[in-house]
């Protein structure tokens, strides 16, 4: 990635300003805004591997779901309750499990941190093995892992089994959606700055070299195995944070419909970078914004058929616009600069 131009700084600051102001202008759409932050996070984290490194994972939903369960469990533990006891009370007197406002906020943040750290480790372990496969095999192998995780989560009774688990109710005085939104925005900002920096380091260049030609990168003596594994672990940590925020926003975890839901979030996280432009820094963000608009539009106006429309959207994007918005912009700008002169080559 080239030097950050002033344009990009201005764009980033403008985006940040809009994002900070948004809750005050759209107080009725807070849960959609929380989802948007979650989507930006998972789109960026997916693109680390899919776009920058050429490893198209269909199973990052694994980390998303584990993160979600972990945050919910941490909140129960830190509230001073037994997890199994809490989950067996589902459907009955869940209201009796209350926490104070400071503990609620602390446990949410600690839960998110714990989810990030644990999934970093899981990413290292799983990645060190699964990243030895390439191409089709990696994609479908991760897909199998992601859906299997949902099935197994549904068999664990202390996590609520197949009928899922509730998040602990936020106490009075906590504005949950606002809290989640600004936490999400903070993580997005950190992740964005981190990625901007990462792609200028040697690590980032090795990632791109793996995408372009892994055999050659290896022949040049680059530590491809280590870079791949650590990149996936970092992506896993941020996907887990996204999962925790998403689950807390929905207030409910279903093992296969919310946490490890491959047909929804699991495939959206691939679609968003593709819509915006794979392998660019801004592509996933723009893609997430576009996707959220499409999704809300479909959910509002296509009652019952919204998921069909979303599937069609995937096919159309993949077949007709595989380079995304950023790819289109790049093509336009190169055509413009091609016409205007020759000095723009740098």
């Amino acid at each position: 990635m080239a030097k950050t131009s002033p344009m990009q700084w201005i764009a980033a600051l403008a985006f940040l300003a809009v994002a900070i102001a948004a809750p005050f202008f759209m107080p009725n759409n807070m849960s959609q805004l929380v989802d948007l932050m979650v989507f930006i996070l998972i789109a960026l984290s997916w693109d680390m591997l899919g776009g920058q490194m050429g490893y198209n994972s269909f199973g990052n939903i694994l980390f998303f779901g584990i993160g979600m369960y972990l945050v919910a469990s941490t909140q129960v533990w830190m509230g001073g309750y037994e997890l199994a006891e809490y989950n067996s009370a589902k459907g009955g007197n869940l209201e009796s499990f209350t926490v104070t406002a400071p503990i609620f906020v602390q446990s949410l943040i600690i839960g998110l941190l714990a989810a990030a750290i644990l999934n970093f480790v899981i990413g290292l372990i799983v990645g060190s093995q699964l990243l030895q496969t390439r191409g089709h095999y990696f994609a479908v192998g991760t897909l199998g892992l992601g859906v299997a995780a949902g099935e197994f989560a549904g068999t664990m009774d202390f996590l609520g089994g197949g009928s899922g688990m509730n998040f602990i109710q936020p106490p009075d005085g906590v504005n949950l959606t606002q809290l989640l939104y600004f936490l999400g925005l903070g993580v997005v900002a950190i992740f964005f700055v981190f990625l901007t920096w990462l792609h200028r380091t040697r690590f980032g260049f090795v990632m791109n070299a793996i995408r372009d030609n892994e055999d050659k990168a290896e022949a040049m003596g680059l530590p491809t195995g280590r870079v791949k594994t650590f990149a996936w672990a970092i992506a896993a940590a941020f996907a887990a944070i996204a999962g925790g925020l998403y689950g807390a926003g929905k207030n409910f975890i279903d093992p296969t419909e919310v946490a490890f839901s491959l047909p929804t979030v699991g495939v959206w996280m691939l679609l968003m970078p593709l819509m915006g432009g794979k392998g660019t820094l801004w592509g996933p963000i723009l893609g997430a914004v576009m996707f959220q608009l499409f999704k809300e539009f479909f959910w509002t106006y296509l009652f019952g058929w919204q998921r069909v429309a979303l599937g069609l959207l995937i096919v159309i994007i993949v077949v007709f616009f595989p380079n995304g918005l950023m790819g289109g912009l790049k093509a336009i700008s190169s055509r413009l600069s091609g016409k205007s002169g020759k000095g723009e080559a740098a």
Partner: protein
Amino acid sequence: MDNILTNIELLTTLAPTINLELIANGLLVGAIFALIAYGMALVWGVMDIINVAQGAFVILGGYVSFYFVNAMAQVAPNTPGILWIVVSMPIAAAAVALFSLIVFKLVIERILDRDLFISLLATFGIELVMQQAMNQIFTAEERVIDAHLPTFAFLDYMVNIPGSRLLGAVLGIVAAVGIVALVRYSRFGRAIRATAQNPRAARIMGIDTNRVYAMTFALNGAICGIAGSIVAFVYVLHPFQGLVYTLRSFAIVILAGIGNIAGVIFAALGLGVYENYSGFVLGPEFQDGMVFIIVPITLLVRAWIMRRKRQYLK
């Protein structure tokens, strides 16, 4: 944990004949898996596309068969149900083949020379569209064709084999033999194999490879249609069950290797037995999960074997 140990004890010491039942049932459903996996291997080998929508095609074939058999039962209530089940197979095959051809013209044809990620995501999108549309049209209710067949008991009711599974396996084998013969001995089959070996050379020899691709995809649709009509009376139909069949086929094909028909059959039978055992030992709620997890595990085993030769799974 305790019930798992009890189940293992049951298998090893208390009632070893259960093993026979599990193996027999596993082999019978394995025959159906082999059919579906063969279709996937065909498309994969010829067009270099992994059809993630494979399972959705199967389910679609099942629904065609289900509605046909139900309609016929009302038109002619006195004829045996098995007759209509058998008649429904070619109908489901034709319907899904036609549908596949439409999908090919609309989507697949445009992504043939794109990279693998595009084709995976596109077929995944097709899978989503199909499962959601089927959910809207056919509702999420579980459907099953009742074949009115008895359950055969052997060894003093220790080994029970449902007649529907037996019939399903027989029909599946007949269909598979026919399809394999078609690919091996017909002119059309020779064109398919030539295109798979070297598309450019095939074009030079005057084969219309684009037409071969279309026909291969339609043939795969027909295979899925037949398999679906078998699934409709052996198992149950549900719009969201498709992905299970896709992942099963994928596991079978990687275990076997592309273009290895004998391998596909053995892997499919093995998967059927494995599934039955894991369902019995761990409990039925684990069965789908154990199918899914076999995909990364087989990949890891194969990657590990290949790494010792300094090769990679690509």
